[in-house]
C-alpha cells in the first residue's frame, strides 16, 4: 500500500507505524526540522526525567560539580548535612554563572560580579551593601539560587525534571529498574563513577544515538575492526558465550537488549588475554556474586551483556565495561555526549586498571568502535539532505518474527512509539 493511499490525502505522521502490515517507518524530517527540535525541547526534554549525575560524584559534604543538561547550566552539590541538591547556575541578581569550576569542594558559591554569596543549599548568605535592600527583600527566597523543580534518585543515579508536575522517578523508570538493579548489584559496597568524563559529540541528530546505543544489527558490519581486535588479542573467543539474544520493550520508551558476546567482562567473565590471574579473579568475583545473589542471578550478571536506553537520552551499557552516557541535541544535526565509566566501590587497583583498559578497547571517542558509530551517524545525517526525494527510515526489522533477537529493531520501535506519543499525540 502506498503512502498516499494509506493516509488518503492527509499529512503522513512522522512515525508511520503500521506494524500489523509489517510497516514501521520514520520520516527523515524528524531528524532535520527545526520545528521538530523545538517540539522535542517542549514535549520531551522539559517533561521527562533527565539524568544529572551519580551520588559518588558528590561523595563528600561540600562537593559540587557543574553540568549542562539540555542547555541548562546546573550546579550539582552535597550540603554539609549530606543532602544532595541541584540548582540553576545563575545569580538571581544579574544572571551571571555563579560557579565557574567543573568540580570541586566549596563552603559557598560566590558570584564575582557583585559578590553575592550563597550557601550549599542555594540560600543567599551575604551581599555587599545589604543595608540598601529592604528588610524583607528576600522574604520569599527570590534572591536565593533557584533549585531544579524536581530532583530524585534511584540506586545512586540522580535525575532531574523541569516539570514540577511530573510523575515520580520510580514510576517513570518503571520496568527499567530491574535492569538498573543488575548493574548496581554488582558490588556489595555499591558502585561509583570512576574519575574522568568523556565529553564528545556527533554531527548527527540525537535520536540516531538513542537507536545506535542498543542496536545489535550494526555490530558486525560497523565494528568489524573491533571484532578483528578481539580475535587477534585472544586467539580464540572462548566457549563461555551465553546463547541469549533478547530485546525487551520496557514500556514508556525504555528498552534493553540482553545477549552473550565474546569480549571479556570485568564483572566475572575473563578472556584468554587476561591470563590465569584474570581467570582466578573472575572466578572469585563469580563466587562472591553467587554467594550474595544466588547462582542464577550471578550468571545473568556475569555473562549477559545489556544495552539499555532510558527514554529519552540516558544509556546504561553493561558490556566490556559499564558506561553511563547522556546525549543531548544542540540543534537538529548536532549532539553533545557525556560518558562515564562505572565500577565497584573499593575495586582493587589491578581490576580497576583492567576495567578501564577493557572500556577503551571499544568505547569512547578514542576506542576501536565508537568513532565508527560517529561516522555512521554523521553519514545518515548527511544523507537526509536528500529527504525531499528519499524521505523515510525503515525500522521494520523483526516485525514478522515471533521471537525477535537483538539484531531486530524491537528496541528502536519502543523508543519511536514513545517519541511519537509525546510529539504527535495519540493517534486513532
Amino acid at each position, binding site marked *: 500500500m502506498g503512502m498516499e493511499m494509506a493516509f488518503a490525502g492527509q499529512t503522513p505522521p512522522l512515525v508511520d507505524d503500521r506494524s500489523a502490515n509489517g510497516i514501521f517507518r520514520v520520516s527523515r524530517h524528524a531528524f532535520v526540522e527545526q520545528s521538530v527540535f523545538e517540539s522535542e525541547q517542549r514535549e520531551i526534554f522539559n517533561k521527562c526525567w533527565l539524568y544529572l549525575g551519580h551520588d559518588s560524584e558528590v561523595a563528600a559534604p561540600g562537593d559540587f560539580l557543574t553540568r549542562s543538561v539540555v542547555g541548562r547550566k546546573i550546579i550539582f552539590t552535597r550540603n554539609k548535612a549530606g543532602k544532595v541538591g541541584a540548582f540553576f547556575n545563575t545569580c538571581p541578581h544579574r544572571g551571571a554563572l555563579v560557579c565557574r569550576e567543573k568540580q570541586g569542594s566549596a563552603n559557598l558559591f560566590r558570584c564575582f560580579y557583585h559578590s553575592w554569596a550563597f550557601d550549599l543549599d542555594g540560600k543567599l548568605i551575604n551581599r555587599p551593601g545589604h543595608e540598601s535592600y529592604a528588610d524583607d527583600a528576600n522574604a520569599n527566597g527570590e534572591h536565593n539560587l533557584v533549585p531544579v523543580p524536581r530532583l530524585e534518585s534511584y540506586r545512586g543515579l540522580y535525575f532531574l525534571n523541569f516539570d514540577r508536575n511530573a510523575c515520580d522517578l520510580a514510576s517513570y523508570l518503571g520496568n527499567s529498574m530491574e535492569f538498573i538493579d543488575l548493574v548496581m548489584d554488582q558490588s556489595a559496597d555499591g558502585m561509583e563513577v570512576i574519575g574522568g568524563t568523556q565529553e*564528545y559529540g556527533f554531527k548527527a541528530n540525537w535520536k540516531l544515538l538513542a537507536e545506535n546505543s542498543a542496536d545489535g544489527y550494526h555490530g558486525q558490519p560497523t565494528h568489524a575492526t573491533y571484532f578483528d581486535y578481539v580475535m587477534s588479542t585472544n586467539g580464540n573467543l572462548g566457549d563461555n558465550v551465553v546463547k541469549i539474544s533478547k530485546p525487551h520493550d520496557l514500556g514508556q520508551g525504555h528498552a534493553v537488549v540482553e545477549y552473550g558476546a565474546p569480549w571479556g567482562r570485568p564483572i566475572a567473565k575473563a578472556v584468554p588475554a587476561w591470563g590465569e590471574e584474570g581467570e582466578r579473579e573472575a572466578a572469585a568475583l563469580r563466587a562472591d556474586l553467587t554467594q550474595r545473589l544466588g547462582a542464577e542471578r550471578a550468571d545473568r550478571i556475569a555473562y549477559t551483556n545489556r544495552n539499555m536506553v532510558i527514554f529519552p537520552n540516558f544509556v546504561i551499557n553493561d558490556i566490556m565495561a559499564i558506561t553511563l552516557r547522556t546525549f543531548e541535541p544542540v540543534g537538529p544535526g548536532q549532539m553533545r555526549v557525556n560518558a562515564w565509566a562505572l565500577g565497584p566501590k573499593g575495586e582493587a587497583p589491578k581490576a580497576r586498571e583492567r576495567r578501564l583498559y577493557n572500556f577503551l578497547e571499544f568505547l569512547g571517542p*578514542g576506542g576501536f568502535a565508537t568513532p565508527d558509530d560517529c561516522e555512521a551517524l554523521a553519514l545518515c545525517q548527511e544523507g537526509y539532505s536528500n529527504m525531499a526525494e528519499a524521505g523515510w527510515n525503515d525500522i521494520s526489522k523483526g516485525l514478522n518474527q515471533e521471537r525477535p533477537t537483538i539484531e531486530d529493531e524491537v528496541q528502536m520501535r519502543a523508543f519511536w512509539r514513545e517519541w511519537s506519543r509525546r510529539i504527535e499525540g495519540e493517534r486513532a
Partner: protein
Amino acid sequence: MSAQLKIAERLSVSRTEIEDFLFEEAALLDDWKLTEWLALFEPGASYHVPPAGSPDDADPAATLFYVMDDYHRLSERVKRLLKRTAHVEYPHSRCRHMISNVRILGGDDRAFTVTSNFATYRSKRGRTELYFGHHNYVMTRADGSIRIRQKTSFLDSDDIAEQGKVSIII
C-alpha cells in the same frame, strides 16, 4: 649557558636532533605511514590520550582516558587504521601535524623526557577539525637511534564536542 643547553650537553642529545625526530614523526603521520610510525616506538611502549583538559599527572589506571594503549593495542590500532573497515578513517582524512616549542626537560644518557606543543588539523568531507595541546614523551636511545618509550597527548580544549572523536593519531 641556557638550561636547555646544559641538559642537552649532559644527555648527549641536542634539541635539534629531537626536533628532527619529531618532525619526521609528524611527516609519517601526515602521510598515513602508520607502520613506519609504529617503528619509532620501542616494544613495550605505551601511548595515552587523557580527557581534554587533564593535568600532566593524570593516571589511566585510575581515570577514564580516551586512549590507553599498551604496545599490543597500539600495534592493533595501527592495523585497524590501515583497514578499509576502519570506517571513520576510510577514505583517509587529510591531516597536518604542526610541532613547536620543543623542550628537553631532563633525563640521563639512557632515557630523557621531552615536551612539544602541537596543532593537528584533520579535514574530511568539507569539515576541518583542530586538535591542539602538548605531547609529553619519554624517549630512549638504542643503537644510536631515538625511540619512544611513552607518549601522552594532552588536549587543551575544554572537551571534544566539536572534533567529535580521536580517530587519528593526534
